[in-house]
C-alpha cells in the first residue's frame, strides 16, 4: 500500500503547477547564466585568474563546459532549497487545508504509511530537481562551451582538474547535493505536519535555513560547538569533490550529519502526524 500511495503522491505533485515552477525557474536561470558566460565569460574568468597570471600561464579552453557547470551549480544550489520547500512544504498541510487528509485516513492505510509515502514522493521530486539542475547544466554547457580542464578556486588556492577526471566528481557531488536537498525536503515535510496551510511550512523552512546559515557564518566562539552539527554547514559539501585530494573523511562526516537530520525529521513527522487531529 505504501508504494501505491507513493505513486498517488507523485501524481498529485505532478498535477500541481507549483511543481513546475522550480523546473521552469532553474531552466531559465541556467539559460541566463550560459548566455552571460557566452557573452562575457572570458573577461569574468580572466578577472579571477589575473591574480595568478604572474606565476601561472593559462592556455587552452579555460572557459569550458565543466567550468560553467561548476559556476552554475555554485550559484543555483543555494536557491534550490526554496524550490524544493515550495512543493514539499505543501505535502501534508495542503491536504489538511483541503480536507483530503481525512479521506485518506478512512482508507486501508496507516498514518505512518501515509507519511512514509509523502517522504518517498518528496524524495523523488527532490531527486528530479537535482538531476534536472545537474543534467541540464552539464549537458547544455558541454554543447555550448565544449569540454576542458576544470579550474577551481577554493580556500586552499587554485585546483586544476583534468577534463577526464571531472565527470565522476559532478556525479558524486550531485549525490551529496541531493542528500542536502532531501534534508531540506524532510524539514519542510516535518513542519508541514504541524501546519494547516502551505505558506507556514515553506516560510518556516527558509527561515530555519537562513538562521542556521547565519549561525554558521558568524565568527563567534559560542557557536563553534554547534556549527558542525547544523545541516546547513554541510549543504555545500558537494564542492569537496572538486578538491584535490578529495577529503573523503569530511564528506563522510557531512553525509552522517545530513542523514541524522533526515532520520530526526522523519521520526518527528511520524510522531506528529500520528497524534494530529484530522477528524475535523
Amino acid at each position, binding site marked *: 500500500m505504501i508504494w501505491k500511495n507513493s505513486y498517488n503522491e507523485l*501524481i498529485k505533485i505532478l498535477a500541481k503547477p507549483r511543481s513546475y515552477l522550480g523546473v521552469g525557474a532553474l531552466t531559465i536561470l541556467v539559460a541566463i547564466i550560459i548566455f552571460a558566460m557566452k557573452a562575457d565569460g572570458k573577461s569574468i574568468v580572466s578577472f579571477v585568474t589575473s591574480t595568478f597570471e604572474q606565476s601561472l600561464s593559462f592556455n587552452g579552453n579555460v572557459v569550458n563546459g565543466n567550468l560553467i557547470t561548476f559556476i552554475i551549480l555554485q550559484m543555483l544550489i543555494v536557491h534550490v532549497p526554496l524550490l524544493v520547500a515550495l512543493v514539499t512544504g505543501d505535502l501534508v498541510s495542503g491536504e489538511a487545508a483541503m480536507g483530503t487528509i*481525512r479521506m485518506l485516513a478512512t482508507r*486501508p*492505510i*496507516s498514518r505512518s504509511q501515509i507519511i512514509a509515502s509523502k517522504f518517498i514522493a518528496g524524495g523523488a521530486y527532490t531527486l528530479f530537481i537535482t538531476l534536472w539542475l545537474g543534467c541540464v547544466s552539464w549537458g547544455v554547457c558541454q554543447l555550448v562551451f565544449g569540454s576542458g580542464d576544470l579550474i577551481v578556486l577554493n580556500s586552499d588556492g587554485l585546483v586544476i582538474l583534468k577534463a577526464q577526471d571531472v565527470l565522476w566528481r559532478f556525479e558524486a557531488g550531485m549525490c551529496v547535493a541531493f542528500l542536502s536537498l532531501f534534508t531540506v525536503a524532510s524539514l519542510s515535510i516535518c513542519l508541514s505536519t504541524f501546519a494547516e496551510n502551505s505558506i507556514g511550512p515553506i516560510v518556516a523552512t527558509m527561515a530555519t535555513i537562513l538562521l542556521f546559515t547565519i549561525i554558521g557564518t558568524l565568527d563567534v566562539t559560542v557557536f563553534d560547538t554547534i556549527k558542525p552539527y547544523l545541516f546547513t554547514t554541510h549543504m555545500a559539501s558537494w564542492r569537496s569533490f572538486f578538491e584535490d585530494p578529495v577529503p573523503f573523511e569530511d564528506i563522510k562526516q557531512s553525509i552522517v550529519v545530513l542523514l541524522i537530520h533526515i532520520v530526526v525529521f522523519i521520526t518527528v513527522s511520524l510522531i506528529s502526524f500520528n497524534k494530529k487531529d484530522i477528524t475535523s
Partner: protein
Amino acid sequence: MDTNHVIEVKHLAKRFGTFEAVKDVSFTVNKGDVFGFLGPNGAGKSTTMRCILSLITPDAGEISLFGKSMQTHRNEILRHVGCIIEKPDFYKYLSAERNLELFARISGANSTKKDIQEILDFVGLGSRGKHKVKGFSHGMKQRLGIAQALIHQPDLIVLDEPTTGLDPQGIIEVRNLILRLKEEQNKTIILSSHQLAEIELIANRMVIINQGRTSIEGDVQQLLNSEELVVRIETTASATNQAVTCCLANFPHASPHTVAPNTIEIEIKKDEIPKLSKLLVENNIPLVALEPKRKLEDFFIKTVMA
C-alpha cells in the same frame, strides 16, 4: 466476510478532555440493512461514526466490523468500507476521474477506466469525469463523494450527514442514489442524517442516541407502528366543530383538538385511519385533506424528550 452482523458496537465510550462525547452506545447493523443513525446535535453521532472508521480511538467499548475487531484488523476491514464523513473533500486541481483513480488505488482496488466511468454514470456525473473538481457544485461534490465511497466495491457504506448543505433537488438525488444502492447492489448502509423524513423513507432499521447513550434501536416500521400517530384533518371552517364532535364520539381516547380554523389533529393508531376517513364521509363532513403527520419526527422528539 460471511457474518450477518456487519457492524457491532458494544458499550462505546469516548471522552475529549473532561467532555464525555459518547458514554454508552451499543447497536448492531445487519447485512443488507439501510441503518438510520439518529440523534440530536451533540448526541455523539459523529464521534461514533469516526470511531467506527478508526479516525479516532475509543476510550472504552468494542467495535467490530464483519466480525473482526477494528483495533486488530483495521486495514483489512477498511478495504470493505466506503464512507463520506460530512462533506467529501477532493483534490480540486485534479479531474473527477483522477480523484476516483487515486481513491481506488489507495483502497486496494484495481479499478479500470471503465469501472470509473460506470461509477460516474451511476452517480450522474458521467459527462463530467474529465472536468476538474474545483468547478463542481456542492451537489456534484456530494455525488462524487458517493462515487469515491463506492469505487472499491465496498460491502459497507458509512454516510455521515450525506445531505448536509444540499438543496431539495440535491437531497432527492442523494436519496435516490442510496435507494438504488440498496435495491440494485444490496449494500449495507449506515446513514446519519438530520433529515428524519429521509431516514423514514430509506432506512429499514435505526438507532436513536441521545446524550451519548443509545435510546432505542430496532426496525423502523415496527417502532413507528407501535406508536399512535397524529393525523391532520383539514375541512371547512364551518364544519370544524362538527368534525371535533364526531371524532370525540368515536375516538374518545384520541384527544381531537383544533389547530387552525379549518384543521383539527387527532392521535390514533395507523389501522384506525380508514375508519376515521369513512366516518367523516358518512357524517357529510367536507374533507379537504387527511394526512398523517411525519411519524419519525414525532417518534424522534418523544424518544429524545423521554
